[in-house]
């Protein structure tokens, strides 16, 4: 959740990302308070499939841009070209793409946390304590994200596009497959394995691209 919000904030702008995360949390609170224990009746698998597929499609676009730009310009990147990373549709003064990405990431992961809280809390008849525990976890993760986002500002944008593309593609793959009924070996432990797999693929593609561009250097700056 925090990884998506920070990554989107770095590339699409903090305002859209934080507003998207805030609205996602607000919807989550309204759903949790409004539905209570009925929250578990929301078709989470359908939600996972839809949001996972959207993140996968969008993440792959960024991953491809990251691969081609890092291969062409190196890890330092080329700020002038990297700035143009697709349409920047503005609504109510916000970058709508950044808003939607953060909103969906926060809503889906927040719903999963809320399901766990409601399930364990109602089973043990300790719903209030479970809710306090869940809310505290969200606050702690948010604070950790706020601390680390400053050091992330040092990273070149082309590397950020590649990294966020890898993250969105990883989460998109995981959620879409879960929504289809796939059981990942090791459950959530599969996430870093998928990320590692995509990192290896991206590194291989960058190496192949660089070799191709070395044979045809003018293409790198076309």
């Amino acid at each position: 959740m925090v990884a998506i919000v920070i990554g989107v904030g770095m590339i699409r702008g903090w305002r859209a990302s934080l507003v998207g995360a805030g609205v996602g949390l607000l919807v989550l609170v309204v759903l949790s308070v409004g539905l209570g224990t009925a929250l578990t009746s929301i078709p989470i698998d359908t939600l996972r499939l839809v949001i996972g597929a959207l993140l996968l499609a969008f993440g792959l676009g960024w991953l491809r841009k990251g691969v081609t730009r890092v291969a062409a310009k190196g890890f330092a990147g080329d700020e002038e070209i990297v700035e143009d990373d697709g349409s920047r549709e503005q609504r109510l003064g916000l970058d709508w793409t950044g808003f939607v990405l953060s909103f969906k990431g926060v809503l889906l992961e927040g719903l999963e946390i809320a399901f766990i809280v409601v399930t364990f809390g109602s089973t043990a008849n300790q719903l209030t304590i479970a809710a306090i525990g869940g809310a505290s976890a969200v606050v702690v993760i948010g604070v950790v994200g706020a601390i680390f986002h400053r050091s992330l500002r040092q990273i070149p944008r082309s590397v950020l596009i590649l990294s966020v593309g890898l993250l969105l593609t990883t989460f998109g793959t995981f959620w879409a497959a879960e929504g289809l009924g796939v059981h990942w070996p090791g459950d959530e432990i599969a996430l870093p394995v998928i990320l590692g797999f995509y990192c290896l693929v991206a590194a291989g593609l960058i190496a192949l691209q660089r070799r191709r561009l070395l044979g045809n250097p003018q293409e790198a700056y076309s």
Partner: protein
Amino acid sequence: MSTLWRWTKEFGRFWYHFLVGDDWTIAAGVAVAILVTWGLVESGVSAWWALPFATVAVLVLSVVRANRRA
């Protein structure tokens, strides 16, 4: 009516750019990958490997297309 039509068009345009972007093969490839994975799951196959490998295939195809356009 014209305001409603304009909003509908803008809404559709946003989602088109969001999903399709500058390479329609990514959205189409993801749709096919999801359909194939769904088919395998419905057939009783433990298909956790299908979507990551299909995703890599879509990525490679998109990079190749980007190279051709460059």
